[in-house]
Protein backbone atom coordinates (compact mmCIF):
# COMPACT_ATOMS: atom_id res chain seq x y z
CA UNK A 1 0.00 0.00 0.00
CA UNK A 2 1.05 3.56 -0.54
CA UNK A 3 3.38 2.97 -3.43
CA UNK A 4 2.66 4.63 -6.71
CA UNK A 5 1.73 1.25 -8.10
CA UNK A 6 -1.03 0.84 -5.55
CA UNK A 7 -2.61 4.16 -6.44
CA UNK A 8 -2.68 3.08 -10.06
CA UNK A 9 -4.02 -0.31 -9.13
CA UNK A 10 -6.79 1.15 -6.99
CA UNK A 11 -7.95 3.58 -9.65
CA UNK A 12 -7.87 1.01 -12.42
CA UNK A 13 -9.67 -1.61 -10.37
CA UNK A 14 -12.34 0.91 -9.50
CA UNK A 15 -12.78 1.79 -13.15
CA UNK A 16 -12.89 -1.87 -14.11
CA UNK A 17 -15.84 -2.41 -11.80
CA UNK A 18 -17.54 0.78 -12.91
CA UNK A 19 -17.23 0.04 -16.59
CA UNK A 20 -17.49 -3.77 -16.40
CA UNK A 21 -14.16 -4.17 -18.16
CA UNK A 22 -11.04 -6.19 -17.49
CA UNK A 23 -8.47 -4.08 -15.60
CA UNK A 24 -5.89 -4.97 -18.24
CA UNK A 25 -8.02 -3.37 -20.91
CA UNK A 26 -7.86 0.03 -19.22
CA UNK A 27 -4.97 2.21 -20.35
CA UNK A 28 -3.54 5.36 -18.80
CA UNK A 29 -4.37 7.25 -21.95
CA UNK A 30 -8.05 6.36 -21.78
CA UNK A 31 -10.42 9.29 -21.33
CA UNK A 32 -13.23 8.70 -18.85
CA UNK A 33 -15.88 10.00 -21.21
CA UNK A 34 -14.75 9.22 -24.72
CA UNK A 35 -12.97 5.90 -24.14
CA UNK A 36 -14.59 4.47 -21.03
CA UNK A 37 -18.09 5.81 -21.65
CA UNK A 38 -18.53 7.44 -18.24
CA UNK A 39 -21.00 10.31 -18.23
CA UNK A 40 -20.55 13.39 -16.06
CA UNK A 41 -22.37 11.92 -13.08
CA UNK A 42 -20.35 8.69 -13.28
CA UNK A 43 -17.18 10.75 -13.23
CA UNK A 44 -18.39 12.77 -10.25
CA UNK A 45 -19.15 9.52 -8.39
CA UNK A 46 -15.66 8.25 -9.25
CA UNK A 47 -14.09 11.44 -7.84
CA UNK A 48 -16.26 11.13 -4.74
CA UNK A 49 -14.86 7.64 -4.16
CA UNK A 50 -11.32 8.84 -4.80
CA UNK A 51 -11.74 11.65 -2.25
CA UNK A 52 -12.88 9.17 0.36
CA UNK A 53 -10.13 6.64 -0.34
CA UNK A 54 -7.34 9.22 -0.30
CA UNK A 55 -8.84 11.59 2.28
CA UNK A 56 -8.64 14.66 0.13
CA UNK A 57 -10.97 17.18 -1.41
CA UNK A 58 -10.81 17.75 -5.14
CA UNK A 59 -11.80 21.36 -5.95
CA UNK A 60 -14.18 21.92 -8.84
CA UNK A 61 -11.45 23.92 -10.54
CA UNK A 62 -9.26 20.78 -10.80
CA UNK A 63 -11.92 18.67 -12.50
CA UNK A 64 -11.40 19.89 -16.08
CA UNK A 65 -7.85 18.48 -16.15
CA UNK A 66 -8.84 15.11 -14.69
CA UNK A 67 -10.18 13.64 -17.88
CA UNK A 68 -7.95 10.62 -18.39
CA UNK A 69 -6.94 7.68 -16.22
CA UNK A 70 -3.31 8.78 -16.31
CA UNK A 71 -4.14 12.38 -15.38
CA UNK A 72 -6.09 11.24 -12.32
CA UNK A 73 -3.31 8.91 -11.18
CA UNK A 74 -0.68 11.61 -11.69
CA UNK A 75 -2.87 14.07 -9.76
CA UNK A 76 -3.19 11.63 -6.87
CA UNK A 77 0.56 11.10 -6.75
CA UNK A 78 0.94 14.86 -6.39
CA UNK A 79 -1.82 15.27 -3.82
CA UNK A 80 -1.06 12.31 -1.54
CA UNK A 81 1.72 13.28 0.86
CA UNK A 82 5.18 11.81 0.15
CA UNK A 83 5.37 8.24 1.34
CA UNK A 84 1.81 8.56 2.50
CA UNK A 85 -0.68 5.93 1.76
CA UNK A 86 -4.35 6.14 1.09
CA UNK A 87 -6.14 6.50 4.39
CA UNK A 88 -8.77 4.00 3.48
CA UNK A 89 -7.74 0.51 4.46
CA UNK A 90 -10.05 -0.90 1.89
CA UNK A 91 -9.27 -0.83 -1.76
CA UNK A 92 -12.60 0.76 -2.36
CA UNK A 93 -12.32 3.82 -4.53
CA UNK A 94 -15.89 3.71 -5.57
CA UNK A 95 -18.78 5.83 -4.50
CA UNK A 96 -21.24 4.21 -2.16
CA UNK A 97 -24.65 5.43 -3.19
CA UNK A 98 -27.33 4.58 -0.69
CA UNK A 99 -29.34 2.68 -3.23
CA UNK A 100 -26.59 0.56 -4.66
CA UNK A 101 -24.70 -2.48 -3.34
CA UNK A 102 -21.67 -1.36 -1.40
CA UNK A 103 -18.79 -0.16 -3.45
CA UNK A 104 -20.21 -0.69 -6.88
CA UNK A 105 -20.90 2.10 -9.29
CA UNK A 106 -22.84 0.95 -12.23
CA UNK A 107 -22.76 3.73 -14.72
CA UNK A 108 -26.34 4.23 -15.76
CA UNK A 109 -26.15 3.32 -19.41
CA UNK A 110 -22.69 4.65 -20.17
CA UNK A 111 -22.88 7.23 -22.87
CA UNK A 112 -20.24 8.65 -25.02
CA UNK A 113 -19.94 12.36 -25.72
CA UNK A 114 -21.64 13.75 -22.67
CA UNK A 115 -20.03 16.63 -20.86
CA UNK A 116 -20.37 18.04 -17.37
CA UNK A 117 -23.66 19.74 -17.00
CA UNK A 118 -26.63 19.88 -14.76
CA UNK A 119 -30.28 20.61 -15.24
CA UNK A 120 -30.78 21.42 -11.59
Amino acid sequence: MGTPASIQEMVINALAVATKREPASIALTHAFRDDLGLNSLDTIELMYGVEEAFDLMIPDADLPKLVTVGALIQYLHERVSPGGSPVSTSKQVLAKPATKPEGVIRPTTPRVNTKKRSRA
Partner: protein
Amino acid sequence: MPSRQDPHRRVVITGLGIVSPIGIGVPEFWKAALEGRSGISAISSFGDFPLESYRCRVAGQIRDFDPRRYLDESQSQRLDRYAQFALVAAGEAVAQAGLRMDRGDPHRVGVMVGAGMGAMMMGEREITQLYQSQRPHRVHPNFIPTITLNSASGLVALAHGAKGPNLTISTACSSSLHAVGSALLSLQAGAADAMIEVGAEAGIQPLVFAGFCNLRALSSGFNETPTQASRPFDRARDGFVMGEGAGALILETLSHARSRKAKIYAEVAGYAGTCEAYHMVIPKEDGVEMADTMTRALRVAQVAPSAVDCINAHATSTRKGDEVEIRGIRRALKARASRVAIHGTKSMIGHTLGAAGAIGVLVGALTTETGQVHPTINYDDPDPECALPGIAAKVQERRIKVTLINAFGFGSNNATVVLKRFS
Protein backbone atom coordinates in the same frame (compact mmCIF):
# COMPACT_ATOMS: atom_id res chain seq x y z
CA MET B 1 -71.98 25.36 -14.96
CA PRO B 2 -68.79 25.54 -12.93
CA SER B 3 -68.15 21.83 -12.70
CA ARG B 4 -68.27 21.13 -16.44
CA GLN B 5 -64.95 20.46 -18.08
CA ASP B 6 -63.88 23.09 -20.59
CA PRO B 7 -60.32 23.06 -21.94
CA HIS B 8 -60.96 26.51 -23.38
CA ARG B 9 -62.01 28.01 -20.08
CA ARG B 10 -59.85 31.06 -19.56
CA VAL B 11 -57.76 31.23 -16.41
CA VAL B 12 -56.17 34.38 -15.01
CA ILE B 13 -53.80 35.42 -12.25
CA THR B 14 -55.37 37.73 -9.69
CA GLY B 15 -52.98 37.69 -6.76
CA LEU B 16 -49.23 37.48 -6.12
CA GLY B 17 -47.08 36.85 -3.05
CA ILE B 18 -43.39 36.30 -2.50
CA VAL B 19 -40.72 35.65 0.11
CA SER B 20 -37.28 36.00 -1.45
CA PRO B 21 -33.67 36.87 -0.67
CA ILE B 22 -34.21 40.33 -2.21
CA GLY B 23 -37.52 41.13 -0.63
CA ILE B 24 -40.47 39.86 1.34
CA GLY B 25 -43.65 41.02 -0.35
CA VAL B 26 -44.20 41.90 -4.00
CA PRO B 27 -43.44 45.66 -3.84
CA GLU B 28 -40.08 45.17 -2.12
CA PHE B 29 -39.14 42.23 -4.34
CA TRP B 30 -40.07 43.92 -7.61
CA LYS B 31 -38.26 47.15 -6.73
CA ALA B 32 -35.09 45.19 -5.89
CA ALA B 33 -35.44 43.06 -9.03
CA LEU B 34 -35.68 46.10 -11.30
CA GLU B 35 -32.66 47.59 -9.55
CA GLY B 36 -30.75 44.37 -10.16
CA ARG B 37 -29.93 43.84 -6.52
CA SER B 38 -28.18 40.61 -5.55
CA GLY B 39 -29.51 38.59 -2.64
CA ILE B 40 -26.54 36.22 -2.64
CA SER B 41 -24.32 36.31 0.44
CA ALA B 42 -21.67 34.27 2.19
CA ILE B 43 -22.90 31.46 4.40
CA SER B 44 -21.68 32.36 7.85
CA SER B 45 -22.01 28.96 9.50
CA PHE B 46 -23.30 25.45 9.18
CA GLY B 47 -23.37 24.88 12.93
CA ASP B 48 -20.74 22.39 13.98
CA PHE B 49 -19.68 21.53 10.47
CA PRO B 50 -16.50 23.08 9.07
CA LEU B 51 -17.44 25.51 6.31
CA GLU B 52 -14.25 24.73 4.42
CA SER B 53 -15.46 21.23 3.70
CA TYR B 54 -18.15 22.79 1.52
CA ARG B 55 -16.84 23.68 -1.92
CA CYS B 56 -19.57 26.27 -2.28
CA ARG B 57 -20.03 28.73 0.59
CA VAL B 58 -22.53 31.22 -0.82
CA ALA B 59 -26.30 31.17 -1.07
CA GLY B 60 -29.41 33.25 -1.56
CA GLN B 61 -30.39 33.34 2.09
CA ILE B 62 -33.36 35.23 3.47
CA ARG B 63 -31.55 36.84 6.34
CA ASP B 64 -34.28 39.08 7.68
CA PHE B 65 -37.14 36.60 7.81
CA ASP B 66 -38.70 36.76 11.26
CA PRO B 67 -41.69 34.39 11.21
CA ARG B 68 -43.23 36.13 14.24
CA ARG B 69 -43.84 39.20 12.10
CA TYR B 70 -46.24 37.21 9.94
CA LEU B 71 -47.33 34.10 11.83
CA ASP B 72 -48.62 33.26 15.26
CA GLU B 73 -46.35 32.04 18.05
CA SER B 74 -47.13 28.37 17.51
CA GLN B 75 -46.56 28.53 13.75
CA SER B 76 -43.37 30.52 14.26
CA GLN B 77 -41.94 27.93 16.61
CA ARG B 78 -43.23 24.65 15.24
CA LEU B 79 -43.43 24.87 11.47
CA ASP B 80 -40.62 24.07 9.12
CA ARG B 81 -39.07 27.09 7.42
CA TYR B 82 -40.35 26.08 3.96
CA ALA B 83 -43.92 25.93 5.25
CA GLN B 84 -43.51 29.32 6.93
CA PHE B 85 -42.37 30.77 3.60
CA ALA B 86 -45.38 29.14 1.91
CA LEU B 87 -47.83 30.58 4.44
CA VAL B 88 -46.42 34.10 4.20
CA ALA B 89 -46.38 34.14 0.38
CA ALA B 90 -49.86 32.59 0.15
CA GLY B 91 -51.19 35.06 2.71
CA GLU B 92 -49.99 37.98 0.63
CA ALA B 93 -51.43 36.54 -2.60
CA VAL B 94 -54.84 35.77 -1.05
CA ALA B 95 -55.05 39.24 0.53
CA GLN B 96 -53.96 40.95 -2.66
CA ALA B 97 -56.53 39.03 -4.71
CA GLY B 98 -59.23 39.79 -2.16
CA LEU B 99 -60.18 36.13 -2.22
CA ARG B 100 -62.67 35.52 0.61
CA MET B 101 -63.97 32.04 1.48
CA ASP B 102 -67.00 33.52 3.19
CA ARG B 103 -68.12 35.11 -0.09
CA GLY B 104 -68.44 31.87 -2.03
CA ASP B 105 -68.23 28.12 -1.75
CA PRO B 106 -64.93 27.26 -0.02
CA HIS B 107 -65.05 23.83 -1.66
CA ARG B 108 -64.45 25.61 -4.97
CA VAL B 109 -61.10 27.02 -3.82
CA GLY B 110 -58.18 24.58 -3.96
CA VAL B 111 -54.49 24.62 -3.09
CA MET B 112 -51.64 23.38 -5.29
CA VAL B 113 -48.14 23.45 -3.82
CA GLY B 114 -44.86 22.69 -5.55
CA ALA B 115 -41.93 21.70 -3.32
CA GLY B 116 -38.80 19.77 -4.20
CA MET B 117 -37.35 18.95 -0.80
CA GLY B 118 -40.14 19.72 1.63
CA ALA B 119 -39.53 20.04 5.35
CA MET B 120 -35.91 18.98 5.26
CA MET B 121 -34.91 21.41 7.97
CA MET B 122 -36.89 19.52 10.57
CA GLY B 123 -36.01 16.26 8.83
CA GLU B 124 -32.29 16.84 9.22
CA ARG B 125 -32.66 17.96 12.82
CA GLU B 126 -34.74 15.03 13.99
CA ILE B 127 -32.73 12.37 12.17
CA THR B 128 -29.49 13.81 13.54
CA GLN B 129 -30.87 13.93 17.07
CA LEU B 130 -32.16 10.37 16.92
CA TYR B 131 -28.90 8.90 15.69
CA GLN B 132 -26.80 10.93 18.10
CA SER B 133 -28.95 10.43 21.17
CA GLN B 134 -30.27 6.97 20.32
CA ARG B 135 -33.46 7.94 22.13
CA PRO B 136 -36.38 7.15 19.83
CA HIS B 137 -38.87 8.36 22.41
CA ARG B 138 -37.50 11.89 21.91
CA VAL B 139 -38.41 12.08 18.21
CA HIS B 140 -40.77 15.04 18.04
CA PRO B 141 -44.45 14.09 17.83
CA ASN B 142 -44.85 16.68 15.10
CA PHE B 143 -42.12 15.09 12.97
CA ILE B 144 -44.41 13.07 10.68
CA PRO B 145 -47.07 15.73 10.04
CA THR B 146 -44.22 18.14 9.27
CA ILE B 147 -42.13 16.07 6.90
CA THR B 148 -44.97 14.63 4.87
CA LEU B 149 -44.45 16.40 1.59
CA ASN B 150 -47.93 17.91 1.57
CA SER B 151 -47.53 19.69 4.89
CA ALA B 152 -47.42 23.15 3.29
CA SER B 153 -50.49 22.57 1.12
CA GLY B 154 -52.44 21.44 4.18
CA LEU B 155 -51.29 24.42 6.22
CA VAL B 156 -52.19 26.90 3.47
CA ALA B 157 -55.68 25.39 3.24
CA LEU B 158 -56.10 25.58 7.01
CA ALA B 159 -54.95 29.18 7.09
CA HIS B 160 -57.55 30.28 4.56
CA GLY B 161 -60.32 27.71 4.87
CA ALA B 162 -59.81 26.52 1.29
CA LYS B 163 -61.70 23.21 1.08
CA GLY B 164 -61.25 22.37 -2.60
CA PRO B 165 -58.69 20.02 -4.19
CA ASN B 166 -55.48 20.07 -2.19
CA LEU B 167 -52.38 18.64 -3.82
CA THR B 168 -48.60 18.78 -3.74
CA ILE B 169 -46.44 18.33 -6.80
CA SER B 170 -42.82 17.33 -6.32
CA THR B 171 -40.67 17.31 -9.44
CA ALA B 172 -37.44 18.75 -8.05
CA CYS B 173 -36.56 22.13 -9.57
CA SER B 174 -39.64 22.29 -11.77
CA SER B 175 -42.11 21.45 -8.97
CA SER B 176 -43.99 24.70 -8.75
CA LEU B 177 -44.15 25.30 -12.50
CA HIS B 178 -45.84 21.92 -12.83
CA ALA B 179 -48.04 23.04 -9.93
CA VAL B 180 -49.07 26.14 -11.90
CA GLY B 181 -49.83 23.90 -14.87
CA SER B 182 -51.77 21.47 -12.72
CA ALA B 183 -53.74 24.31 -11.15
CA LEU B 184 -54.60 25.49 -14.68
CA LEU B 185 -55.78 22.01 -15.63
CA SER B 186 -57.83 21.69 -12.42
CA LEU B 187 -59.60 24.96 -13.20
CA GLN B 188 -60.22 23.97 -16.80
CA ALA B 189 -61.50 20.59 -15.64
CA GLY B 190 -64.05 22.36 -13.49
CA ALA B 191 -62.66 20.98 -10.21
CA ALA B 192 -62.44 24.47 -8.68
CA ASP B 193 -63.09 28.13 -9.43
CA ALA B 194 -59.87 29.38 -7.83
CA MET B 195 -56.56 27.79 -6.86
CA ILE B 196 -53.97 29.07 -4.42
CA GLU B 197 -50.71 28.01 -6.04
CA VAL B 198 -47.49 28.08 -4.03
CA GLY B 199 -43.90 27.05 -4.61
CA ALA B 200 -41.78 26.88 -1.46
CA GLU B 201 -38.31 25.69 -0.52
CA ALA B 202 -35.82 26.04 2.33
CA GLY B 203 -32.88 23.77 1.65
CA ILE B 204 -29.85 25.77 2.75
CA GLN B 205 -28.84 23.39 5.50
CA PRO B 206 -25.92 21.07 6.13
CA LEU B 207 -27.09 17.85 4.45
CA VAL B 208 -28.97 19.18 1.43
CA PHE B 209 -26.30 21.77 0.74
CA ALA B 210 -23.54 19.16 0.93
CA GLY B 211 -25.48 16.95 -1.44
CA PHE B 212 -25.68 19.64 -4.11
CA CYS B 213 -22.01 20.57 -3.50
CA ASN B 214 -20.91 17.01 -4.04
CA LEU B 215 -23.00 16.67 -7.13
CA ARG B 216 -20.70 19.43 -8.40
CA ALA B 217 -23.78 21.44 -9.32
CA LEU B 218 -23.00 24.54 -7.25
CA SER B 219 -20.75 27.49 -8.00
CA SER B 220 -17.46 27.26 -6.11
CA GLY B 221 -15.32 29.96 -7.71
CA PHE B 222 -16.99 33.01 -6.18
CA ASN B 223 -16.86 32.27 -2.45
CA GLU B 224 -15.06 35.56 -1.83
CA THR B 225 -17.37 37.57 -4.09
CA PRO B 226 -20.83 36.11 -3.39
CA THR B 227 -22.87 38.65 -5.35
CA GLN B 228 -21.06 37.60 -8.52
CA ALA B 229 -21.59 33.86 -8.07
CA SER B 230 -24.91 33.51 -9.89
CA ARG B 231 -24.28 34.62 -13.48
CA PRO B 232 -26.55 32.94 -16.00
CA PHE B 233 -25.33 32.96 -19.61
CA ASP B 234 -22.05 34.64 -18.62
CA ARG B 235 -18.80 33.06 -19.76
CA ALA B 236 -17.43 32.77 -16.20
CA ARG B 237 -20.46 30.95 -14.71
CA ASP B 238 -19.51 27.81 -12.82
CA GLY B 239 -22.63 26.33 -11.27
CA PHE B 240 -25.83 27.38 -9.58
CA VAL B 241 -26.22 29.16 -6.26
CA MET B 242 -28.83 27.76 -3.93
CA GLY B 243 -31.59 30.09 -2.86
CA GLU B 244 -34.63 29.77 -0.63
CA GLY B 245 -38.08 31.30 -0.54
CA ALA B 246 -41.61 31.01 -1.83
CA GLY B 247 -43.80 32.37 -4.58
CA ALA B 248 -47.59 32.32 -4.54
CA LEU B 249 -50.23 32.99 -7.18
CA ILE B 250 -53.99 33.08 -7.17
CA LEU B 251 -55.25 31.42 -10.33
CA GLU B 252 -58.94 31.59 -11.09
CA THR B 253 -61.34 31.22 -13.93
CA LEU B 254 -61.96 34.42 -15.80
CA SER B 255 -65.68 34.29 -15.03
CA HIS B 256 -64.96 33.90 -11.30
CA ALA B 257 -62.46 36.75 -11.36
CA ARG B 258 -64.91 38.97 -13.22
CA SER B 259 -67.73 38.17 -10.83
CA ARG B 260 -65.49 39.39 -7.99
CA LYS B 261 -64.23 42.37 -10.01
CA ALA B 262 -60.70 41.21 -9.26
CA LYS B 263 -57.59 42.89 -10.67
CA ILE B 264 -56.11 40.70 -13.39
CA TYR B 265 -52.34 40.50 -13.86
CA ALA B 266 -52.15 38.10 -16.79
CA GLU B 267 -53.85 35.16 -18.41
CA VAL B 268 -52.40 31.68 -17.97
CA ALA B 269 -52.82 30.56 -21.56
CA GLY B 270 -50.95 27.30 -21.81
CA TYR B 271 -48.82 24.70 -20.11
CA ALA B 272 -46.85 21.66 -21.13
CA GLY B 273 -45.06 19.17 -18.91
CA THR B 274 -42.85 16.51 -20.43
CA CYS B 275 -40.17 14.02 -19.40
CA GLU B 276 -37.04 13.54 -21.47
CA ALA B 277 -36.76 9.97 -20.14
CA TYR B 278 -33.05 10.43 -20.72
CA HIS B 279 -31.01 10.90 -17.54
CA MET B 280 -31.87 11.73 -13.93
CA VAL B 281 -29.60 14.77 -13.82
CA ILE B 282 -28.41 15.59 -17.33
CA PRO B 283 -30.55 17.30 -19.98
CA LYS B 284 -30.37 16.12 -23.57
CA GLU B 285 -27.61 18.22 -25.00
CA ASP B 286 -29.15 19.18 -28.33
CA GLY B 287 -32.01 21.03 -26.63
CA VAL B 288 -34.59 19.18 -28.73
CA GLU B 289 -36.57 18.04 -25.70
CA MET B 290 -36.67 21.48 -24.08
CA ALA B 291 -37.71 22.97 -27.42
CA ASP B 292 -40.46 20.36 -27.67
CA THR B 293 -41.84 21.35 -24.25
CA MET B 294 -41.92 25.05 -25.20
CA THR B 295 -43.53 24.24 -28.56
CA ARG B 296 -46.23 22.11 -26.96
CA ALA B 297 -47.07 24.82 -24.41
CA LEU B 298 -47.33 27.41 -27.19
CA ARG B 299 -49.61 25.11 -29.16
CA VAL B 300 -51.90 24.68 -26.14
CA ALA B 301 -51.95 28.47 -25.74
CA GLN B 302 -52.61 28.89 -29.47
CA VAL B 303 -49.69 31.27 -29.71
CA ALA B 304 -47.26 31.26 -32.64
CA PRO B 305 -43.55 31.15 -31.76
CA SER B 306 -43.21 34.44 -33.63
CA ALA B 307 -45.57 36.07 -31.11
CA VAL B 308 -43.43 35.38 -28.02
CA ASP B 309 -42.04 38.59 -26.51
CA CYS B 310 -40.28 37.48 -23.35
CA ILE B 311 -38.92 34.37 -21.64
CA ASN B 312 -38.31 33.97 -17.94
CA ALA B 313 -35.61 31.36 -18.44
CA HIS B 314 -34.73 28.54 -16.06
CA ALA B 315 -31.17 29.96 -16.33
CA THR B 316 -29.56 28.43 -13.27
CA SER B 317 -25.99 29.48 -14.14
CA THR B 318 -24.69 25.95 -14.68
CA ARG B 319 -22.28 25.51 -17.57
CA LYS B 320 -24.38 23.17 -19.65
CA GLY B 321 -27.86 23.90 -18.36
CA ASP B 322 -27.86 27.47 -19.66
CA GLU B 323 -26.30 26.41 -22.94
CA VAL B 324 -28.88 23.69 -23.57
CA GLU B 325 -31.79 25.98 -22.66
CA ILE B 326 -30.67 28.62 -25.17
CA ARG B 327 -30.28 25.88 -27.77
CA GLY B 328 -33.85 24.82 -26.99
CA ILE B 329 -35.11 28.43 -27.24
CA ARG B 330 -33.39 28.82 -30.62
CA ARG B 331 -34.99 25.63 -31.88
CA ALA B 332 -38.45 26.46 -30.58
CA LEU B 333 -38.59 30.12 -31.60
CA LYS B 334 -36.34 30.05 -34.68
CA ALA B 335 -35.70 33.64 -35.90
CA ARG B 336 -37.78 35.04 -33.06
CA ALA B 337 -35.13 33.86 -30.57
CA SER B 338 -33.03 36.89 -31.47
CA ARG B 339 -35.90 39.26 -30.76
CA VAL B 340 -37.33 38.07 -27.44
CA ALA B 341 -36.34 39.56 -24.11
CA ILE B 342 -34.88 36.91 -21.79
CA HIS B 343 -34.34 37.27 -18.08
CA GLY B 344 -32.86 35.04 -15.42
CA THR B 345 -34.29 35.76 -11.98
CA LYS B 346 -31.82 33.34 -10.39
CA SER B 347 -29.00 35.79 -11.11
CA MET B 348 -30.31 37.79 -8.14
CA ILE B 349 -31.98 35.31 -5.78
CA GLY B 350 -30.20 32.07 -6.65
CA HIS B 351 -32.00 28.86 -7.48
CA THR B 352 -34.89 28.33 -5.11
CA LEU B 353 -35.37 24.75 -6.40
CA GLY B 354 -39.02 23.78 -6.01
CA ALA B 355 -40.08 27.41 -5.54
CA ALA B 356 -38.43 28.60 -8.75
CA GLY B 357 -41.37 27.95 -11.10
CA ALA B 358 -43.92 29.90 -9.06
CA ILE B 359 -41.46 32.78 -8.67
CA GLY B 360 -40.84 32.63 -12.43
CA VAL B 361 -44.57 32.93 -13.15
CA LEU B 362 -44.88 35.77 -10.62
CA VAL B 363 -42.05 37.59 -12.42
CA GLY B 364 -43.64 36.73 -15.76
CA ALA B 365 -46.97 38.19 -14.63
CA LEU B 366 -45.36 41.44 -13.48
CA THR B 367 -43.29 41.62 -16.66
CA THR B 368 -46.32 41.04 -18.87
CA GLU B 369 -48.35 43.60 -16.95
CA THR B 370 -45.72 46.35 -16.78
CA GLY B 371 -43.50 45.72 -19.81
CA GLN B 372 -40.47 45.94 -17.53
CA VAL B 373 -37.94 43.13 -17.94
CA HIS B 374 -35.68 42.91 -14.90
CA PRO B 375 -31.92 42.62 -15.46
CA THR B 376 -29.98 39.38 -15.57
CA ILE B 377 -27.20 40.54 -13.31
CA ASN B 378 -23.55 39.53 -13.76
CA TYR B 379 -24.14 39.04 -17.47
CA ASP B 380 -20.87 40.84 -18.07
CA ASP B 381 -19.18 38.71 -20.69
CA PRO B 382 -21.74 36.89 -22.84
CA ASP B 383 -20.86 33.26 -23.46
CA PRO B 384 -21.02 32.80 -27.24
CA GLU B 385 -22.66 29.40 -26.65
CA CYS B 386 -25.69 31.06 -25.09
CA ALA B 387 -25.62 34.69 -26.13
CA LEU B 388 -28.85 36.15 -27.45
CA PRO B 389 -29.49 39.86 -28.00
CA GLY B 390 -32.48 39.89 -25.63
CA ILE B 391 -30.43 39.04 -22.53
CA ALA B 392 -29.30 42.17 -20.71
CA ALA B 393 -27.65 43.15 -17.43
CA LYS B 394 -29.92 46.20 -17.25
CA VAL B 395 -33.68 46.76 -17.22
CA GLN B 396 -35.43 46.55 -20.58
CA GLU B 397 -38.67 48.34 -21.35
CA ARG B 398 -40.62 46.37 -23.90
CA ARG B 399 -44.10 45.94 -25.22
CA ILE B 400 -44.98 42.47 -23.96
CA LYS B 401 -48.02 40.43 -24.85
CA VAL B 402 -46.70 36.90 -24.38
CA THR B 403 -44.22 35.59 -21.80
CA LEU B 404 -42.91 32.04 -21.53
CA ILE B 405 -41.70 30.58 -18.24
CA ASN B 406 -39.38 27.58 -18.23
CA ALA B 407 -38.40 25.18 -15.48
CA PHE B 408 -36.43 21.96 -15.73
CA GLY B 409 -35.83 19.44 -12.99
CA PHE B 410 -33.97 16.31 -11.95
CA GLY B 411 -35.89 13.26 -13.03
CA SER B 412 -35.54 14.38 -16.66
CA ASN B 413 -38.58 16.61 -16.50
CA ASN B 414 -39.37 19.88 -18.25
CA ALA B 415 -42.18 22.39 -17.91
CA THR B 416 -43.23 25.53 -19.76
CA VAL B 417 -46.08 27.92 -18.94
CA VAL B 418 -47.36 30.58 -21.34
CA LEU B 419 -48.73 33.87 -20.01
CA LYS B 420 -50.67 36.34 -22.13
CA ARG B 421 -51.29 39.96 -21.43
CA PHE B 422 -54.94 40.09 -20.39
CA SER B 423 -57.30 41.86 -22.72
